């Protein structure tokens, strides 16, 4: 267990700046998720904490120890890779015990710790198999096992679940969360999947093109996005954005307005916006109604399946409460 702090971390590859200054103080045992679209620099940020990329500017501290110039092995971290990065020529047990063996630990201690981890991860029947004889989910567990056997101060995860199918992903997500709770190890977790981020994180860092647009608890970020990007990225289906001049109730300093699909309502009178139903998607518990508004934009309304489903081409009105309306200036900043 350890605290981790990033102080104005920057990264350039040659002349291209990839990370433009990220700051965060991570508490002991906290689960931090770094989320953002592909190419925004999530992996790069994580790899700088791991020591796999050099830090161009800024400082990384693990437990008050500046680690900028330390080798990965000196940082007391463990990392789980997207492709698992298991040692293909070693058995599951050897994979998990590799770090301890390198460190010169006695054989029975290694066996002990590997067994404990294997029990925790339900890997006992597979200890003598090689990675190629395992399923994706099992490999994923071995990678986790290799990380926990060493009892590191910090866990780093780089999209560990993205190679698994949807169902397994949900299951492993839960397991990772429980494991982290149980072990209480400070964790940094990278994903581009906002559901994963929302469910796992104590706090999340929403990254946009090398910047941390917002850092905070998932629900807080959902309720109160700091930028247009965050509002659009967190929440599914994404927030509806439209030009502020489209509605009569003016919010003087906002250029763009955003309203989440679940906050919009189809009404017959007192409409803030009028439009025409384009098509409906019935998902079972809920229905997504896509509505074309006067400037040809298509907005989405998410309503419960019990509500009457309007037929295509019907003219309708849209309404929402003023509290749920988010205004953004021309730079995408929240007003």
């Amino acid at each position: 267990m350890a605290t981790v702090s990033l102080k104005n971390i920057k990264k350039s590859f040659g002349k291209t700046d990839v990370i433009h200054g990220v700051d965060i103080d991570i508490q002991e045992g906290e689960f931090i998720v770094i989320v953002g679209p592909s190419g925004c620099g999530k992996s790069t940020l994580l790899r700088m904490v791991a020591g796999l990329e050099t830090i161009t500017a800024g400082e990384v501290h693990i437990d008050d120890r500046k680690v900028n110039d330390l080798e990965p092995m000196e940082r007391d971290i463990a990392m789980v890779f997207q492709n698992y990065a298991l040692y293909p020529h070693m058995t599951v047990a050897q994979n998990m015990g590799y770090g301890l063996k390198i460190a010169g630990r006695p054989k029975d201690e290694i066996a002990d710790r590997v067994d404990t981890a294997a029990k925790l991860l339900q890997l006992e029947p597979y200890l003598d198999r090689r990675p190629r004889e395992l399923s994706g989910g099992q490999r994923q567990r071995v990678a986790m096992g290799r990380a926990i056997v060493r009892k590191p101060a910090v866990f780093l995860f780089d999209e560990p679940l993205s190679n698994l199918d949807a169902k397994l992903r949900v299951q492993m997500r839960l397991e990772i969360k429980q494991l982290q709770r149980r072990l209480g190890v400070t964790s940094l977790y990278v994903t581009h999947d906002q559901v994963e981020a929302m469910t796992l994180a104590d706090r999340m860092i929403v990254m946009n093109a090398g910047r941390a647009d917002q850092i905070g608890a998932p629900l807080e970020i959902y309720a109160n996005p700091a930028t247009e990007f965050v509002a659009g990225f967190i929440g599914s289906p994404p927030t509806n954005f439209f030009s502020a001049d489209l509605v009569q109730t003016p919010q003087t300093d906002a250029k763009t307005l955003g309203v989440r699909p679940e906050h919009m309502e189809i009404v017959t009178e007192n409409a803030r916006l009028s439009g025409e139903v384009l098509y409906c998607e019935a998902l079972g518990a809920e229905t997504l109604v896509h509505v074309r508004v006067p400037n040809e934009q298509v907005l989405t309304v998410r309503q419960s399946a019990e509500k009457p489903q309007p037929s295509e081409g019907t003219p309708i009105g849209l309404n929402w409460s003023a509290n749920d309306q988010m205004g953004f200036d021309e730079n995408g900043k929240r007003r």
Partner: protein
Amino acid sequence: MEKRVTFKGIWLPLLLVLPQIAITAVFFFYPAGQAIWQSLFIPDPFGLSMQYVGLGNFEFLFSDPFYRASFLTTAIFSILVTVVSMGIALYLAVLADRLIKGSGVYRTLLIWPYAVAPAVAGVLWLFMFNTRVGVVTWYLGLLGYDWNHVLNGEEAMGLVVVASAWGRISYNFLFFLAGLQAIPKSVIEAAAIDGAHFWTRFRTIVFPLLSPTTFFLLVVNIVYAFFETFGVIHTITSGGPQQSTTILVYKVYSDGFVGQDLGSSAAQSVVLLVIVGLLTIVQFKFIERRVHY
């Protein structure tokens, strides 16, 4: 799954493989058959008649101390060529693999020696080590070392080994580099995080993962050292001094064409044929069971 091309009739595929079969027949089956046939006879010195001796040529061969010495020479020579060329190639490949920039230049330069024919490479090295005018000989002389591979058998062996290994380094380097680059970077990174420094990583992760490449190269290089180094030996030492660099292939030539002992030469060819066969079997067995991680 592999996609297989299937033909309807038998004639088209037959026609397509015919040239290859013809070449193999003319340049391999026919001479090999002749060698086997001739190995059973002793021709008279004028080549006018042949006397059937059964396995007599082989019996004589294996009781000949010179032939047995040649086996030992070949073994030493092949092991040295293989170890030297693979060792240096692996070292260079590891260095090139660590390079991020300029590895293309490095690679291109290292491939050049492979384009040099063995005989030419032999002459090149011969010039450098020429006992009277060689550059290296001169420098060695300055250091107080009197190089003379024409008289000293060990020096002769050293020279042919170096000249033979030199051209092979390129070939081995390419395979090793490809092998190294096929190892996922994240596996190496995981090992680094697990606490393994460079040498430990090499010993416990990289080298084991490279073993299919290493084994393949081992067989290929032994075959090379056995059969394709004729040009180098012929240009540098002609098998001397005192047969100290007469490997089996060279002995076939010197006994047959120089010594005119055609029966023995044919028998030696047959022995070599068997050795190639064995090496090929080893290689095929390996390719079949090739380890896929």
